[in-house]
């Protein structure tokens, strides 16, 4: 396993180097989360990240996306050092789906308007017509892939869709234009079991089809074991399990559950 990690570092597509992050420093509620944290991911990997509550999973994603700054250390994506880039600048090559279904789409705009905006990502947002009639068929074809019947509801406000439909749409939307990195933060957690399965299958399909490098945080150990080709377990700001390829396939869900219970008990929850 160590040789495999070494080779990943050489071919790092995403790299976090010597990251330090403390929340609310010098206050009573100070949280020292990361001290000298490093992680690399090679191109094309589908990484599932699990871990106890508060272990820093979301924070890693926030650091990569630029939603919060690191205290020190450096982050690189596809050969670029992104430390000085703002969140919206990094978004040009990162796609992200949040846990909250209302974050990934605009509720008051229609499905069509949401897709037209996403379709124009990377282009100028000038005074041309917002929705191009020529693209309608493309949008319909893409929506058909969701198998939710949304292709007949292009004029519907996204706010009136269910959480599962919105997450599926958000996933489709953020992968419409070319991406370096897909970030999923518990994107099925707010959904009921059935929609959760649907969205997860869709995720797998899109990631494989587009060969996307993906970081997926999940609360669901089964998903983590079943999907992805590398699994990371976090605990208190460190990686406690890191298994890729064959080593991951060899991991049994029971081992994961045991390990997970162990770290959770340590945290008293």
């Amino acid at each position: 396993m160590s040789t495999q990690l070494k080779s990943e570092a050489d071919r790092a597509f995403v790299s976090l180097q010597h990251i330090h992050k403390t929340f609310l420093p010098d206050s009573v509620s100070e949280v020292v989360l990361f001290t000298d944290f490093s992680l690399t991911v090679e191109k094309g990997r589908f990484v599932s990240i699990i871990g106890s509550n508060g272990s820093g999973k979301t924070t890693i994603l926030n650091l990569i996306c630029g939603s919060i700054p690191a205290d020190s250390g450096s982050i690189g994506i596809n050969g670029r050092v992104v430390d000085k880039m703002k969140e919206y600048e990094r978004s040009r090559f990162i796609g992200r789906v949040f846990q909250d279904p209302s974050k990934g789409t605009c509720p008051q705009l229609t499905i069509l308007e949401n897709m037209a905006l996403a379709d124009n990502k990377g282009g100028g947002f000038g005074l041309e017509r917002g929705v191009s009639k020529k693209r309608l068929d493309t949008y319909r074809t893409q929506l058909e892939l969701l198998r939710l019947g949304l292709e007949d509801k292009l004029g519907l406000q996204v706010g009136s869709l269910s959480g599962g439909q919105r997450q599926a749409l958000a996933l489709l939307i953020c992968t419409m234009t070319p991406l370096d990195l897909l970030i999923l933060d518990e994107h099925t957690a707010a959904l009921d079991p059935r929609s959760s399965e649907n969205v997860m299958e869709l995720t797998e399909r899109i990631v494989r089809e587009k060969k996307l490098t993906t970081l997926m945080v999940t609360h669901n150990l089964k998903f983590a074991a079943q999907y992805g080709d590398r699994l990371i377990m976090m605990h208190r700001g460190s990686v406690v399990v890191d298994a890729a390829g064959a080593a991951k396939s060899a991991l049994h869900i029971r081992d994961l559950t045991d390990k997970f219970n162990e770290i959770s008990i340590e945290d008293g929850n």
Partner: protein
Amino acid sequence: MDIILGLVRDVLEEGFIYGIMAVGVYITYQVLGFPDLSVDGTFPLGACVTAALISVGVNPWLACLIAFLCGAAAGCVTGFLHVKLRITDLLSGILVMTAMWSVNLVITGGKAVLPFYDQPTVFSSGPASLLSGGLQDFRVVILGAAVCLAVKYLIDLYLRTKSGLLLRAAGDNPQYVVSLGRDPGSMKILGLAIGNGCTALSGCILAQQTESANISSGFGMVVMALASVIIGTSLFRKVKFVRATTSVVFGAILYKTCLVAAMQLGLPTNYLKLLMAVIFTIALVSNNFFAGRRKTSHVNPTQI
């Protein structure tokens, strides 16, 4: 009969002129969710700029354009204070509104009222002079409506462009704009520029109607504009074929109707601002009431 016709004319004159501002405030308040108090300062800004320009012989239509641009610049300042310096939305508006008082005084050369009688205005020159006989009495309504509807139409067109869609997205879900690789803050500034540009244009047209600019004419404009927007959008929410921008113009006319009706029923002028506040409160409360009822019918986020 003539009295009623005269009243209807007065209501429409003012309704359309203030309707221009309502369309602008629709952008900031309804599209961006920004309660913009700088309107109280940018409305007289438009009037003062216009008076200063027209009294030195500038073409009244060019004055309209310049007034719009001045208002837009002031809106950019509000946006800058809020977005870049992280001052709250309400305070940013108050700061600009306060600063505008001095700016307006500088523009009028220190005068509280700057008249420009007998100079050409949009109501007395150009297309207006083509209106024949009887229509002359209605030239303010006709030109006010023309300008107001032109602004409304341009805003409608804009909202359907890529930039316009992005502006709506910025008000709806700023995180979505971020995910498109765009800065939602810039869109906010742009929206405030458009909103205050329209407001200044509204002040400009009013000044041309009265042939003078009054630096205290902005007092109460926030309340009037917001009331128009809220009355208009909540009344016509259910009516699909009426655009929101059209409904806020109706809102402005309706609002003026209430005021004029109250005056006709003998309400002393001193109570005018009190009445404005009361109408606004009623509009807000009833809007919240209906919005609350609508929310319950929303789809639960976890059901598919």
